[in-house]
């Protein structure tokens, strides 16, 4: 089945990704349960709104840990723009919105993905820090605490919206992508379309791992 497929992610990457993603979804859902009284019923599924609050708070701690590993793991690949191709990619919106004859070739992550990563890293950190203060609001001056609530809500607006972009492009918007995070193995055609430069780099450095073939060299992206 997998013969000829190329490894896009390793197990560690996938575990970290899904820890972050699932805890983030859980935080969004439980957060929504507190944000809108009409959604208070979400708490009923967890034994009441009070339990929901604790689910939210402790999932928040887990999210913080996952976020730490995420940033450590992906900072180099997704946190830094490489010029000028990333800028050109942004100019033509990666070919997602209108027809582009030749989409600039970007690395393992394209600038859209980088922006998503940076938004999650930045606002995720804000969510974690503001959330901690909001957990123990009586230990901080009211003026600070009031600001924390606004930032937490702002972070939610950003993360929640980005989440749906990510969801669409990770599934039906770009068929084949999901495999990269589920099994870790993707087709050459998909890789060529999504990350042509990365494919070339791996081929040049001999770090390409093809299922069923002898590894040509040690794995490329260590942590």
């Amino acid at each position, binding site marked *: 089945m997998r013969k000829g497929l190329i490894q896009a992610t390793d197990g560690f990457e996938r575990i970290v990704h899904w820890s972050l993603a699932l805890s983030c979804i859980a935080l969004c859902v439980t957060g929504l349960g507190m*944000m809108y*009284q009409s959604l208070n019923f979400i708490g009923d599924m967890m034994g009441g709104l009070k339990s929901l609050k604790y689910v939210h708070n402790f999932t928040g701690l887990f999210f913080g840990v996952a976020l730490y590993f995420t940033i450590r793991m992906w900072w180099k690949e997704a946190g830094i723009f490489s010029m000028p191709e990333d800028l050109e990619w942004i100019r033509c919106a990666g070919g997602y919105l209108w027809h582009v004859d030749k989409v600039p070739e970007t690395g393992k992550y394209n600038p859209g993905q980088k922006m998503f990563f940076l938004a999650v890293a930045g606002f995720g950190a804000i969510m974690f820090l503001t959330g901690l203060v909001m957990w123990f609001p009586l230990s901080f001056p009211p003026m600070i605490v*009031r600001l924390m609530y606004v930032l937490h809500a702002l972070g939610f607006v950003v993360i*929640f*919206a980005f989440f*749906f972009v990510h969801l669409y492009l990770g599934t039906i918007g770009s068929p084949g992508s999901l495999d990269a995070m589920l099994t870790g193995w993707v087709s050459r055609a998909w890789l060529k379309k999504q990350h042509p430069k990365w494919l070339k780099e791996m081929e040049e450095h001999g770090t390409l791992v093809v299922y069923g073939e002898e590894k040509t060299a040690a794995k490329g992206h260590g942590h």
Partner: protein
Amino acid sequence: MKRPELVKLIDTTLCSACRGCQVACKQWNEMPGLRTKQIGSYQNPPDLQWNTWTLIRFQEYVNDKGAFKWLFRKDGCMHCTDAACVKVCPSGALHHTEFGTVGLNSSRCIGCKECVSACPFDIPRYSQETDKIYKCDLCYDRLRNDALPACVKTCGTGALTIGGKDAMIKKAYARVKELGGDTNVYGDKFVGGTHVLYVLDEKAKVYDNLPRDPSVPFSIIVWKDMLKPLALLAAGGVLAGSFLHYILHGPKLPDEPGKEEKGGE
């Protein structure tokens, strides 16, 4: 049943600081008395607490002419029309009642303490033991049964009275007119009008712990009136956009073999 909007009037010029109201409130609401210390003041407990929803604040004041006054102010929830605490409460534990007052349904409270930092008057108090907040509910249970709030019932000097909103506002202004000087009405001009009014003996700025011009904190307006709808709007927009993208532009598919070098779709 339609109920009239009520206002409790606290006439500080009539208060003798007997603290009958402070104790009556505990008695009716079955709040315990805790051990305190004498800290050099008649004000005790020193501040509102989870078990102390109303409190006489004692303050020694010398005006700029050198005249001395011992000021008494019964502190407690102001029952705001634009109540910041109700705005932020995620569970609906804090809510507006049919009397226009701000009720507290303790069984719904999840102890998030959002109301504590929201309240411009610094009223709600948290109990570690029950993990809930507490505050005056203007004796909602008594009002429902056509009884006076416990504090009003007990006040022997007429400093505390309650009645229909318009009548009480009129009464407050009439009293200020009668007294003259620096006396003034406090409460009807901000946060949409409070359902607890003061006739103050001195200008509001003279009193400890009494904000001169309280308002719903701006951060709460941004959070609840702007970001909250924006969260749904943004997410909805993204979903709609994704759908349109899918049906108009189509997903990004790997190129078919042979067409690879042409790029595009």
